[in-house]
Every structure is written in C-alpha cells, then in structure tokens.
C-alpha cells in the first residue's frame, strides 16, 4: 500500500497535467469556502483588529515618554494616564480579539473540514468497484486520512498563523513609518536580505522536508513489515539481518532530521543577525538625529522596539511553510479523486421492482475489465427463478465475472443483464440491492457487535430475527459461546474470529437480507468440512424457493445444486444436473472422480 502511495507522489512531483490539477483544486477550495463566506470574512476582520491592537504598544510607550513625562513634570497627569490607560485598553482588546480569532477560525475551518470529509466519503462510496480496484484501498484510505490531516493542519493553525504573522509585519512596518519614516526606510532596506533568506529557506526546507518524509515512510515500512512477519523472522533466524536493515533506515531518518534541524538553525541565525543589525542601524540613524534634535528619544525607543519585533514572525512563517506545501499537494489529490466519475451510474429513470422473482437473463453480454481484454465474449444465459445453479471452472475462466455482473458491481460493454425482464442499468438501486445479494470469499466484518454485523443484511431487524438467521447457518452456538454473546465486539479490542467463523457470520447476514437471488462467490472456501456442511443445511432451507448462483472450488458444495455450468474461457462448455454431467464423462466428471478419490471412500458426499 505504501508503495503505490509513494509512486503517486513521485508522479505528482513529476508534473504532467499540472494546470488542470491546480484549476480543480482552486475550484474545490472555492466551493468549500462559499458556504462559510460570512464567518470567514468575520475572522479576517478579527485578525486585522487584533493585530492593530497589538501593534499600538510601542507607539503608546513613545507617547508616554515624549508627552506624558514632560506634562507630568509640569503637573499634568492627563497625557500619561491617557497613554497608560490606552495601553491597558489595547492590551485587553488585543487579548480578547486574538482569543476570538482562535475560536472563529476554528469554527470556519472545522465546518470546511466536515464538509470536505463528507464529500470525499460519499464520493468514494459512490464510485464503482472498478475504481476501487484500480486506485487500491491504500490510496483511497490515505486520501481520507493523511491528506485530510494535511489540510486540517493548515486550517488548524497554519492559515491564521500565516495571516497573523504577515499582517503583524505589515502593521509594524506601517506604524514605524508613520512614527518616523526614516527608520521605516531602514526597515525597508533590511526586508531585502530577510526576503532573500526566507526564499532560500523555503526552497531548501522543501527538499529536507521531502527527504525526512520519505525516510520516515521507509522506516515505518520496515518496522511494520518486520512486526507483521515476526513469526517468520524468528523461525528463519533473520533477527540479525533485520536489525541491520532497520539500523540503516534509522540512520537515514536520523540524518534527514539532523539536516532539517541544522537548516532551521541557519534560518534562525540569519533572522537574528538581520534583526540585530537592523536594530543597530535604527539606533545609529535615529540616535544621530536625536542629537541634532530631529526626533524625540521616545520615538527612537519605539523605533528600536518595532525593529526588534519586525522579524520575529518570519520564523513562524518559515515553520508553517511546509504545512502549506503539503496541504496544497493534498488538496490537489483530493480534487482529482472527487473528479472521478462512477462507471456504474445510477439510472436516470429508475424502474421499480416490488416483488422480484429472481429470473436472470444474460443477453449477448460482452465484458472486460477497464480497457483490458475481453473476459466474457457474447455470453447468453437464462437462469429461471427458483433454481440453484453452480458455476464450475478453473481460476480465470470468468465465473466471478458473471457473479459481479449479476450484482451490478460492473456493467457489461455490450448486451444486457436482465432481472425479471428489467435491465439492471434501469433498475432502482434500492430494489436491486433488496433483490440480489452477493456473498464473497472475503467475509468482511465491521467493528461493532456480532449482532450489528449480521443486521447489516437488514437494518432494523429484531434480535429474534438476527438469532434465527444465525441458527439457520449454524453459527448460533458459536456466537452464544462468546463472552458477551451477540453483543460481543468483533474488532481489535474484542474477539478475533477465524476466517471460517467470519464467513459464517457473513452468511447469516445474507440469510437475514432474504434476497430473491443469492450469489455465492467462493463463499465457503475458508470453512472446515463440518462448518461447510452446516452452511449447506442452512442454505437448503434458504434456497428452497429462490434463485441462487453458487461458485465453488469444492465439489461438496457444487453437488447440491440443481444445475451445473462448467465455464471455460468465458463460455459455458457443459450444462446439466450434477448427475447428468458425471454420467456424460466430460470435464466435470473428471473433477468429480478426483474429488471422490481424495475423500477416500464410497458413500461419502
């Protein structure tokens, strides 16, 4: 998973359709900001006001010295009280406004994040399986976790810090210029090396940042791989070798961090240097003018204080530059994901199917995955309602493809798949899901209780109904023996079920859903023989009067079907009841003979 993510990062860095990506990400940002326009502008005003209050300090100090002191000596306390009182007011105001900024910006950024999270989640759910298989789960997950985190980090503190710092510098410079334009001019000159240094730092830090991120990803991959494979590492005495490999990666990471710390050190040093030299220059320029009576001492003091303040925010900007960069990249990737169109679109005018029977017809269906080769060439098939049909054939013969087309995980390239005479592409999605349920080899359980996992088949089912489903597939005794019965959690914090047990639970799910057509794709592969038998007994009741398509390697499952289709290279090559096919002596008969031999005795089914 981490590999594909990295490949994509590389591809992104390489450029390509750069323009389009940027446009999309700007458009996404715009659409995210539109609903929170009002509060966003309010936050901007708060930031400006807060900075204004903060920047007034040195000017008030100057006023206190230059006006308050002489006036007080003359017995007039009013100017001093005004200056000090003004300072108190701006201090409180500054504090309140800054605090309000923090709250307001959190409200705005959290609203944006919630919106973005929902959009991405909904969109990935809408996208077809073809997309999920092509894009890989790892990348979809990292879009929704680490990329959203990058955006969050920027929104969380980055934007306000950037705005506040930038504004603080601007206002400081403006105040100084208003106070004494000559000192302002000195500051303006000092901005040039400051800007050059910051630009240099940005470029360099981007490189070190990437390097450190890559190194940490590689280190994590090694760690995770070794921990996951610990059994094999110890069994094959790989401890020393793994220690060496990990040590190398740890050194890579260390040296990347070392470089990053040093780079920051150079930047900080440069800022300190420029700041101090500016103070010295302001002091000499201002001091000489005080001597000649050009300005008052208070103004000089204020100028020195402003000059000291001016460069401090730059180090903040430098720190947030990286988060700005990664958020920008993340936003581009998210915009690209959101621009994906589902290849299995919902019908424009959905046809309802209130009481499905489960009659299936493939009419001249041609199918291949993506732009790949044809897997099913002109496939015609009629499965009358109420029968159990087994599909048999080698891996890659096209059995699973038939199952996926039935569940409309994909649409055919040509031809139609009909359920009770309705093209699946026109069928109301809700009715389709009620009518057709597919159980696959990987029995996925969601974290939550066993009951909740079974109830996924029919939300709102009562406990009694859930239990009945569990009994029907023979998993009730197992569930009852768990620490909290049906309320036992099945996740990392709870009980870990074996692959076979998970398959039983997912069978109960399908049983509860009670569809007109049940599709089983290798759904019994992880069960041991007694478990498989239990499921078969349950299926016999479930399938008594409905349609089923069963795909299985194990002949024990196939032999219970009404009809068997042997598929090879996307075509049906044998068709008949199990007994007929065994008698006919074709491929199926050969498979059957092998299986009988391995069970090792007559009379065993």
């Amino acid at each position: 998973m981490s590999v594909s993510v990295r490949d994509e990062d590389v591809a992104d860095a390489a450029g390509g359709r750069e323009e389009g990506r940027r446009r999309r990400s700007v458009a996404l940002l715009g659409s995210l900001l539109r609903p929170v326009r009002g509060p966003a502008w309010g936050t901007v005003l708060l930031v400006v006001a807060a900075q204004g209050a903060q920047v007034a300090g040195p000017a008030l100090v100057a006023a206190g010295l230059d006006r308050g002191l002489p006036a007080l000596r003359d017995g007039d306390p009013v100017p001093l009280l005004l200056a000090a009182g003004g300072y108190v007011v701006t201090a409180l105001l500054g504090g309140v406004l800054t605090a309000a900024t923090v709250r307001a910006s959190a409200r705005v950024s959290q609203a944006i994040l919630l919106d973005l999270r929902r959009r991405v989640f909904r969109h990935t759910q809408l996208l077809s399986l073809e997309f999920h298989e092509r894009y890989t789960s790892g990348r979809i997950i990292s879009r929704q976790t680490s990329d959203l985190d990058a955006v969050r980090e920027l929104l969380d503190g980055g934007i306000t810090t950037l705005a506040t710092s930038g504004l603080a510098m601007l206002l400081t410079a403006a105040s100084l210029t208003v106070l004494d334009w000559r000192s302002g001019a000195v500051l303006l000159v000092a901005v040039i090396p400051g800007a050059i240094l910051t630009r240099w730092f940005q470029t360099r830090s981007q490189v070190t940042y990437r390097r450190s991120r890559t190194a940490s990803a590689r280190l994590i991959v090694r760690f995770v791989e070794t921990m996951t494979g610990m059994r094999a590492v110890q069994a094959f005495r790989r401890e020393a070798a793994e220690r060496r490999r990990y040590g190398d990666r740890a050194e890579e990471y260390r040296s990347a961090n070392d470089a990053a710390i040093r780079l920051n050190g150079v930047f900080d040093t440069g800022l300190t240097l420029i700041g101090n030299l500016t103070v010295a220059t302001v002091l000499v320029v201002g001091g000489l003018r005080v001597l000649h009576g050009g300005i008052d001492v208070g103004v000089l003091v204020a100028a020195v204080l402003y000059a000291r303040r001016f460069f401090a925010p730059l180090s903040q900007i430098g720190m947030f530059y990286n988060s700005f960069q990664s958020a920008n990249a993340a936003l581009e990737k998210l915009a690209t994901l959101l621009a994906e169109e589902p290849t299995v679109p919902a019908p424009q005018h959905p046809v309802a199917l209130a009481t499905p029977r489960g009659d299936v017809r493939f009419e001249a269906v041609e199918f291949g995955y993506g732009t790949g080769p044809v897997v099913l060439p002109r496939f015609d098939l009629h499965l009358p309602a109420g029968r159990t049909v087994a599909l048999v054939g080698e891996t890659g013969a096209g059995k699973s493809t038939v199952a996926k087309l039935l569940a409309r995980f994909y649409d055919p390239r040509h031809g139609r798949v009909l359920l009770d005479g309705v093209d699946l592409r026109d069928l109301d999605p809700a009715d389709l899901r009620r009518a057709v349920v597919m159980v696959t080899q990987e029995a996925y359980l969601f974290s939550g209780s066993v009951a909740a996992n079974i109830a996924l088949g029919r939300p709102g089912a009562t406990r009694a109904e859930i239990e009945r489903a569990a009994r029907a597939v023979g998993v009730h005794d197992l569930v009852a023996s768990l620490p909290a019965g049906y309320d036992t959690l099945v996740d990392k914090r709870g009980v870990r079920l074996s692959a076979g047990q998970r398959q039983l639970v997912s069978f109960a799910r399908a049983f509860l859903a009670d569809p007109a057509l049940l599709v089983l794709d290798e759904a019994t592969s992880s069960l041991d023989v007694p478990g498989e038998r239990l499921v078969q007994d349950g299926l016999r009741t479930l399938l008594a009067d409905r349609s089923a398509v069963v795909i299985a390697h194990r002949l024990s499952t196939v032999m219970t079907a009404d009809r068997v289709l042997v598929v090879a290279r996307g075509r049906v090559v044998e068709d008949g009841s199990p007994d007929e096919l065994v008698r006919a002596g074709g491929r199926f008969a050969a498979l059957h003979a092998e299986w009988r031999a391995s069970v090792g005795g007559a009379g065993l089914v």
Partner: protein
Amino acid sequence: MSSSSLWRLREWARPALARVALGGLAGLGASLLALAVPQVLRVVVNGPLLSGGHSGAVVLAAGLVAALGLLEAFFVWSRRALIASPGTTVEREMRTALFAHLLDLPMAFHDRWAGGQLLSRAMSDLSIVRRWMVFGLAMMVVSVATTLVGVGLMLATSWQLGLVYVAGAVPVVWLGFRFRQDYKVVARRARDQAGDLATTVEESVHGIRVLKAFGRGDDALEDFAQQADELRSTEIVKARTLSRITFALGALPELVLALSLGVGVWLASAGDLTVGDLVAFFATAAVVNTPVERLGQLLAMTMDARTAADRYLEVMDTVAALTDPARPRALPEPPAAGTRVELSGVHLRHAGQGAGTPDVLDGVDLVLEPGETLALVGLTGTGKSTLLSLIPRLLDVTDGSVRLDGVDVRDVGRAELRAAVAVAFEDPVLFSASVRENVLLGTPGLSDAEAEERARGALEVASASFVEDLPDGMDTVIGEEGLSLSGGQRQRVALARAIAVRPRVLVLDDPLSALDVATEAVVTERLRQTLTGTTTLVVAHRPSTVALADRVAVLQDGRITAVGRHTDLLAEHAHYRYVLTAMTEPAPDSAVGVTR
C-alpha cells in the same frame, strides 16, 4: 516510575551529554547577549542622547549593539549545530535498541501487543523524546536563566518596576502551564476520535464490496458523518481551551507593560528613575517576555516527554520469557533415518486465558518417527497451529517437553534449533525482497551456484512456475514494497522457503489451503517425493492434504485421541470422520471453537 523515567534515559543519552550541555551554554549565551542590548541602549540614552553628547559615542554604541548582535547570532547557530547530531543520534540508538529488543521477545508477546502500539512507540514517542532533548531540555535551562537574569536587571534598574513585572510574570507561567494541561486532555480526546474516524474510513474502503452488495452506502455515510461531527465539536472545545491560553499569554504581558509605563513615567517625573533606565526596562521586558511565555510550554513539553519515556520503557522493561539456555547443548548429528520428534505430556496455557478454562493443549503425547510425514487433523480452533509453534520453540510449553533426537528444545540455542526446524505458515508473510531472497531466507552462506540450484529446486517442488512469468523472474521484488502476489502464490513461495532450508524437521501449517484442486494435486505429489527422509508434521483440513501423510494424528479437546492410517481412522474414529467429511453429529462439547 514516571518521575524517574526521564532520568533513566541517560543510559542512552550519556555519549551526547557533553555536547548537549555545551549547546545549552551556547543558548544561554545567546539569551544573555540579547539582554545586554537594552543596557547599551540605557547608556546611550542617559549619556550622549539626553546630555547632548557627541555623535561618536552614538556610533560606538550602535557598533557595540551590532557586535553583540553578531555574537548572539553565532551562539544561536552553535546551539543547533552542537545539539542536532547528538540529539538525533540518541534517538536513533533508542530506536534501534527497541527494535532489537522486540526481535528478541517471543511470539507470546507479539500476539498480545497490537502493531500500532509498538509503532507509535518507535516513531512518535521517540520523536517527542528527541525534541525534548534537542530543544526542550536546553531551552528550559536557558529560559529559566534568562528570566532570572532579566528580572535581576529589571530589579536593579528599578525595584518598583521589577516587582510589577514579577507580579505579572508568575501568573503567566502558571496559567501557561495549567491551560496546556487542560488542552492536552481535549487534544487527546480529539486524537482518539480522529483515530476512530480513520478506522471507519478504513472499514468503509475494505468493506466496500459488502456495503455495495447490500446497498448500505448511505447508512455508512450517516454513521461517518455523525462521527465526523462529534470530532468537529471536540475540535471546537479544543479551540476554546486554546483561546483561553492565547488570551492569558497575549494580554497579561502587555498589561504589565501598560502598568509599568504608568508607574515608570511617574517615577521618572519624580526623579527616581532616568529616562534611559525606563528605556532599558522596556527593552529588557521585550526580551524577557519570550522566555516567560515559553516556560509554560516547556513544562508541558517535559510532561509529554516523560509520558513518552514511560511508554518506551514499558516495552524495554519487558523481560523476554523465552531465552537461550545459559549453557546451550548441541543437537546430536542427524541420524541416517531422520530426526525423531517427541512431545510428551505437553500442556499449553495462554497468558490471558480465563481461570476455569481448560488448557489449550491439555497433555499432548505424540511421536514423529524418523523420516515420517504425520498429518495433524482437528476442528478449527483446537490448537493445531499452537502445537506446531512448539517445535521451533516460537512458543514454550507450560508443562511437559518437546524433544528432537532426545534433546529438549529448551536446552538448545534458538538459532541452532530453528536452523534444524523449518516452518511454512498457513498465512504466509513474505518480505520486501526478491523472490530468490525470500526463498533463501533460511539458508545463509551458500555459494551463488548452490543458492541458485537450491532456490530453483524448492520453487519447482512448490509448483511455483508462475515465478518465471514475473517481470524479473526470481529477481522480482515482492512484498510490501514490491509486486503483490495472490494468496495461493504467496503460499507456494512460503512453502518453497521452508523446503529450501532442507531441515531435519519440516512443519507445515495447512500449506495448500489457498490452492485450487488441480495445483494442489501436483504440489502434493512432488512434496511426497521430496519429503522422504525429512520428518514432517503437517496440519490438514482437507482429505487431499492428508494424502501427503504416512500417518494421521487427531487433536481433540487438547489431546491426541488417535494416531493411525487415514483409511483406518476414517472407518473407526467417529470424530476424525466428522472433521474430514462432516458425517455424523459431533459430540456437543466439541462444537466449532473460538479463537481469542
């Protein structure tokens, strides 16, 4: 424990201590120099500026400020330069020490600990410790020293103004610390909720087929949106806490300055204070404000580092329960007929097992005769895989013994034992390396030609002909960082890996479960030929795998209830028949078991 955990880190930090201390001194120097600038300012204001002195003095003073500034910059640079390497080196040493320790801990430990818990200790906790060591520790000393010196200077300049400042600074430090503690609680909650949200995302992606098959996408979105909204509320609470810190740290120091302005100008008008003193006071306050505000943050950082150190030491303090014997015995030369494996009176109980439950293995007696292949059959969850793990000593027996050619496995060094016993697991883990390296994982020190022949032979037996079709054949990199193989392909590579060792004892855990019927038949036939002379124990779920074996042992309720030939057992042993063919009802107490 926790108060001493940071102190205990000196074990790893010792080589770096000298440079960290020097770096701290540099930091201190920088801070003190920054404090010297206002003093120059004071002299200039009081001297030439107010008493109409000459311009040369002003230029000289400015030159002095510039020189001090240069020196300060130099110190700022030295601090980072001095601490960066030793700090990151200590982090690396701690990290590799943790990794080495984890490699030494037995499977019983790894089964209990979630991978994420270990990863977060290896990555983020150690980063926190490093940041504290590189930045926090030194800055703590520097900030305290700077504050003390600065406050001293202010008091010396004017004790009244100094007192005003101290009265303001104490609550700033305290509030800064206090609020950060509150903040950490909310921040922790937000992190947990974000973690849960990530889990929901992961499940919605991994379970996409289920969600689509049942049309439950909207329900999933609803759950997700609700969770995301909870996270949003927590983030808002977090911002509210943060805004309190911001208010306290933003307004208090400025209020102190406002008060000082009033008091200072009043004092100056009374002649108790010069204008230069007042200027110096404000300039000093501007310098000292930074470390004062930082102290609260540094205290919080130290607390975090302590928690991180605790979490790290928690793992490092875990004593490996399964170690090499003090004086390891060597295994005897392998007998010509093959190695004899003997399990007698073996009991095994997992650490977390509830009282009153029977042992997983409850007195197993089993002998593998030299060179024979024995199949182990039992229901899911009866402890077959656990039993296999005892032979290469990935687990230790709770009671009883496992012997190879008469030697207890606990008396042999782990490396020697595991060279003699090779395993293929049901769920095979391959490593990010070429197919060749994966197959030759357990056979170091072969010549190139030998290695080539060994790898080809092993892959041949495992019917892994698909390897030839991979982009770079045997040199194709597979695993997490390379090409991903299907379950059946991985199983065959893992099987080849075990065969390539040419071990005395081969242990196979349902090695063909992911293969289709035709491939399974081919592999079974080749294995039968290859295994002659190698004592083999194989777990089987299907009759086709049993076909590999000379004899079969039935594991039932923690004991071996029968050993014999497949056909005989099928005829005579009811439970065996039930396990392999599901014929006849099981006894009520031996229903499908639960793995915890």
